[in-house]
């Protein structure tokens, strides 16, 4: 049995806890022992990507310290997992000891879908979700972690789920962290384009493994009063057929 140390990104912790709860349910159902080290806070991505590397380094050090002994660190966010796995090493300032610590942790950090499919070799997690779903390739999952097929493999095994491909699935949704509020007109134009592609695919839900994209795409869909909604992959995989109940209606 694998012991999983769960990393819950700060804004999932505070604003979208159901994503973390769903990840716990799926991992436990898959037979993992899930731990949540409470000393964790933020991986430092906002500081790193806005150019505040000193602050990012301090948070990265905390992350490495908290998870140093973990067998596997699993995170339901592609961009946070990518920060820990790929960006930490850049914050080295010529410090070899840090580079070693960051490199030692990196291969044990997994994004949620990647952990299920690559590490546990699991694609059927016993989920039931009778809806038409489009998968959005979140940029950091796709390009930093090379995760393209894993989420789709998981979705294909979900009972009742119809997986549809929208147009331009690999085009950025326009969130981009601080970019979303620093240049809101450009960010929103990209969000509207993504939302239009979801709608054209006649999907009821758009999903991915990055909560920040979902906050953005879901926010655009809601503002446009669109039929489609955004949902995290973990929440789909956590959905089950309740014995004797009508089909799940989220």
């Amino acid at each position, binding site marked *: 049995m694998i012991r999983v140390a769960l990393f819950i990104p700060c804004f999932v912790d*505070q*604003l979208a806890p159901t994503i973390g709860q769903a990840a716990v349910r799926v991992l436990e159902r898959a037979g993992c022992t899930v731990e949540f080290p409470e000393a964790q806070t933020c991986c430092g991505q906002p500081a790193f*990507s806005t*150019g505040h590397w000193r*602050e990012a380094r*301090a948070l990265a050090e905390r992350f490495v310290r908290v998870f140093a002994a973990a067998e596997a660190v699993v995170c339901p966010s592609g961009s946070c997992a990518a920060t820990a796995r790929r960006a930490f090493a850049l914050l080295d300032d010529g410090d070899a000891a840090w580079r070693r610590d960051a490199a030692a942790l990196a291969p044990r950090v997994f994004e949620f879908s990647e952990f299920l499919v690559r590490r546990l070799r699991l694609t059927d997690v016993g989920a039931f979700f009778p809806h038409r779903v489009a998968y959005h390739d979140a940029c950091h999952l796709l390009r930093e972690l090379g995760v393209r097929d894993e989420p789709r493999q998981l979705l294909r095994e979900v009972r009742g789920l119809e997986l549809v491909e929208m147009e331009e699935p690999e085009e950025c949704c326009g969130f981009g962290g601080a970019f979303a509020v620093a240049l809101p007109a*450009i960010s929103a134009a990209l*969000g509207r384009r993504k939302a239009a592609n979801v709608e054209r695919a006649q999907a009821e839900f758009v999903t991915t493994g990055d909560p920040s994209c979902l906050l953005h795409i879901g926010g*655009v869909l809601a503002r446009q009063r669109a039929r489609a909604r955004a949902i995290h992959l973990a929440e789909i995989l956590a959905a089950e057929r309740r014995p004797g109940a009508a089909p799940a209606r989220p």
Partner: protein
Amino acid sequence: MNAERQFRRAGARAAADAARQDFLRAGLAGYGHAAAGARRRFADWSAARDRCQEVKAEALAHLDAYLLRFEERVVARGGHVFWAETAAAARDYILGVARRHGARRVIKSKSMVSEEVRLTPALEAAGIATVETDLGEFIVQLRREPPFHIVTPAMHLRRGEIAALFQRELGAPPGADSAEELAGAARRALRDQFLAAEMGITGANFLIAEEGLVAITENEGNARLCSSLPRVHVVLTGLEKVLPRLADLGLFWPVLAAAGTGQPITCYNSLIGGPRQPEERDGPEEFHVVLLDNGRSALLADRERRDTLACIRCGACLNVCPVFHTIGGHAYGATYSGPIGAVLMPQLGGLERFGHLAFASSLCGACTEACPVKIDLHRHLIRNRRDAVAAGRGRRREGWAVRAWAWLAADPRRYQRAGAVLRRLLRVRRVLPGEGGMLDPLRPWTRARALPAPPAESFREWWRRRTAAPPARDSHD
């Protein structure tokens, strides 16, 4: 600051024009599909990229020796090589050559370096009529605007707009708006220029060190005319364009064509080594190569960013960039636009003036994925952000917010209390009217996007409750 404000305004204006974006994307998607097809013709595109990266790294590692070798070979054939440290030095040298030959008319082929040094305005100011002969560049010159895209300068224009322009500027007959008729009108206007010009100016795609050759890639044949018809030919190029050996073109010609326009190979590829030789019947009497530094040797010395000099100006990063798709090239207000522009411009034109461009990115990484020479583009954007923060940008609101967040997150208890306060504030805000309106403090987010209701309980509160009372969980599995 001013350049940044202009950029924000131009970007927001372009972002609001969905029809224009559709037009732009349709054009860029055409290159995208063609590029994907061209990449598939490679037995191993990924290996080709690796090799390109290696060759350019080698060229840059020994750039000094390679450039001297190049110079030696060109000089041996009777050519001149001028090392221009600054844009002004390049302009002055070329003006001097033109004056010495009493040139009144100059023909030019496409060169982004000539845009970088503002060559045409300098020639025009000296009374030398300068005509762009690449069709796209010819069109934007008639419109008195800079190129929209580094490879396809007039891609933002519809055929009808070009027809109207040609009618107005060239006296083309009304209704002549087929591609053939428009190309014919430009050709007729340019033919006399080609024949009359005393001096031709071209760029260079590659400088071949070992053989001392300038490689020029084009689709229209105009660069060939610029380099062979007039008495004087001047090549203006960045000093980073070196390839060690002639054989390297076997890789770089198809890679440039595939990544840029999606062609198997570009229509015309010329190799020029100097002025007309005694046994030759064609070619210029005088041949000059101007090697422009303009900040490039500082980049060469910058270990972190040296790979930026490997850029072959194929435009692939622009073609895949979601921000470029949304705002187009002119909004950047810079010679080089798109991801490579945001990376390069602060190095060439100053961090103060162009540092803001690095922040105009969602960091999606599509540029890095598309780059045929594997420049670490999106991480360079973050490095430019780091440098802009260090140079004073960190004193802005965003900097304070990030530092405050980092301080809170340095301690789990502090972080947790701050999270609870934040959620409470967001709940209070929801009862206020006018989400997304002028008075909404979260308007930058909420103007276009709803914000979901904050949960009463954070994940860690839930976790603590659950571990305190474990038996109820997932009873049915």
